């Protein structure tokens, strides 16, 4: 399946998808669920995985890609070990979420949607994590942090960096 230079570069283990197809390939309207499970497996949606999904479901590759790109949940690039989901919903905005974004961007040297060169951190802005009463809020992997200030957010990131430097006990 070397349709383009990109494909040559990504050689995902496609056998991991088999259980997903077994469960969902014949179900009507299951494309989004398949994409979600594939992203669970690979952390993002590599091109060869998308193509494999198209082959196995009989849905045209353009349509698979078109559907995947419509939804913000899907990623087409690998993410860092720590995915920082920073809320930019209304409540968080009113309480200064943009300053938190500026502060962590400046700390990590990356913007929304980017990953640091060492592959440790990615920043993704999202709209409302449903903890608005603790705004501003961010979620790093499974952990939620509330009532942030720029200083507090930067400190949390530095703590993670430090624990990584000391052998990487997660958070």
């Amino acid at each position: 399946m070397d349709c383009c230079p990109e494909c040559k570069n990504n050689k995902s283990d496609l056998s991991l998808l088999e259980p997903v197809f077994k469960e969902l390939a014949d179900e009507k309207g299951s494309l989004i669920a398949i994409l979600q499970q594939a992203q669970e497996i690979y952390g993002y949606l590599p091109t060869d995985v998308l193509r494999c999904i198209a082959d196995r479901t009989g849905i045209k590759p353009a349509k698979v890609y078109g559907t995947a790109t419509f939804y913000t949940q899907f990623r087409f690039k690998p993410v860092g070990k720590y995915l920082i989901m920073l809320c930019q919903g209304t409540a968080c905005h009113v309480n200064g979420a943009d300053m938190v974004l500026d502060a962590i961007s400046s700390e990590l040297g990356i913007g929304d949607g980017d990953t640091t060169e060492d592959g440790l951190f990615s920043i993704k802005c999202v709209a409302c994590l449903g903890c608005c009463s603790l705004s501003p809020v961010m979620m790093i992997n499974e952990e939620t942090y509330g009532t942030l200030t720029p200083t507090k957010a930067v400190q949390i990131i530095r703590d993670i960096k430090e624990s990584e430097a000391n052998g990487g006990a997660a958070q």
Partner: protein
Amino acid sequence: MSKMKIVIGQGSCGIAAGAAKVYDALDNAIKAGKLDADLSITGCIGMCYLEPIADVFTEEKGAVVKRTYVQLNGSDAADVFALIQKGDFENEAVKKYEISEEDENNLKSQTRVALRNCGNIDPENIDAYIATGGYEALKKVVSGMTQDEVIDVIKVSGLAGRGGAGFPTWFKWNAAKSSPGDEKYLICNADEGDPGAFMDRAVIEGDPHTLIEGMLIGAYAIGAKEAIVYVRAEYPLAIIRLKNAIKQANERGYLGDNIMGSNFSCKMRIKAGAGAFVCGEETALIESLEGQRGMPRLKPPFPAASGYFQKPSNINNVETFANVAWIINNGGEAFAAMGTQDSKGTKVFALTGKINKGGLVEIPMGSTLRDVIYGIGGGIRENKKFKAVQMGGPSGGCIPADLLDTVIDYKKLSATGAIMGSGGMVVMDESTCMVDMARFFLDFTAKESCGKCAHCRLGTKRMLEILERIVNGEGKDGDIELLEELCVSIKDGALCGLGQTAPNPVLTTLKYFRHEYEAHIYEHKCPAGQCRSLVTYTIDADKCKGCTLCARQCPVQAISGSVKNPHVIDTEKCIKCGKCIANCKFGAISVN
């Protein structure tokens, strides 16, 4: 009961505030034999500003006494509860966590229908729900009511859709019931897209069986054999709790074939959304359920005639369903007795922003905004001045201070230019810039427009560009008029509610805060002092003693200088957080 019972609130925001750590601390203490108590969890009680919260039940002189402790800490929780167990309630270490009378009354002053069990029962245990009379309404319906009788009770109740539009629920049910065909679907909209609202999350996390029961009654009424819940992907805990509840309901025969021995059968499943606001619109939601890009369809045909895979379908919001079992149990009249002429029952609001007591609030329709914001919400943080409240999210608008006595009612709220919406209430104070607020929402809708209609796709983008220009101090004469013109044409040219209502945040801020737009454009000033391009922070070299405090506090290292020498701020780096001003003891830093 002789053993002490401890119930810890474990909604998403409770967990974020540290409730899981408190739970673990107590659990460990129990396992180590240091504490003798039954530990369980519950959902969001609504007092999110007091999280982590625990209710303690003890038996005293034969009666069960409940005490509530708030803002607990994982670090000393085990010691505090050991004291409570000894009956040492007056101990200072315990007393400081006790809920204040004022906060307790806040909860009592609410009327809870949709949230009746939230924060009271264990959402992971079906028996806890059954013990409150759960599934009685379903039993009543499947064992002795006709479809029309059910629809009639809902009609009498006056229940209107809580997802935003406020359409009468009975009418939709009746239309779906009357549509020809055997294969019908009942769908629950749990996409909760309004950024700043979390009512539906709280219901699913705190009382999932109420949703299941309400949906089953709806499915019975319209004749559906399959029900689907479309849940936002950002709500992982809600999905876990709902899955668990569906499994339990299946095991107990409340779901599946021949429910409670009747000839009514219904399956239920969950579909996780994938992060697209427009999928909250019902026809886009159906497209998404079918595995497509979530782009709205032209109506008619309405979903009641042709919805999920072209079959008759009915879609309701989570909160709408959460009222249903209560209405069947208590009668339509009891529900209709609450509220105003046009709006019946209660409404749940998520109160957030610059408010003292943020959280979930359920009040009867007909209360005023003041009741909510200054009564239950406890007013504005830091005693600042209330400026406006945003209702209805990206489809809604800002209601200014002089309309605080507006009554909560679909028509009265629409008359202000805002809408009831799904229940987001974001409170803003004098430091919130209303032009920036409009820009914020247009940024949101421009990103979320599905792209089907040119007016919505391009119009919101053009409006955003103008608003960005204004908040950056580059607004031009004529920009306000251009915005107004775009508002009209987007409203006219958009297919779905997203585009049709996208101008509302601009229209309401222009209506009530036009002077703020003018100040940005003509004076290059942001009256609220929020627009960062229009303010700069500088250090007065004469006043600066070179104490270095500001430089150490600055989160982005924008301040440089050596000890005992005047410091300077690099305005390129400065994010205008105000931290330096707040910390300078010599008043050397100014903002203008």
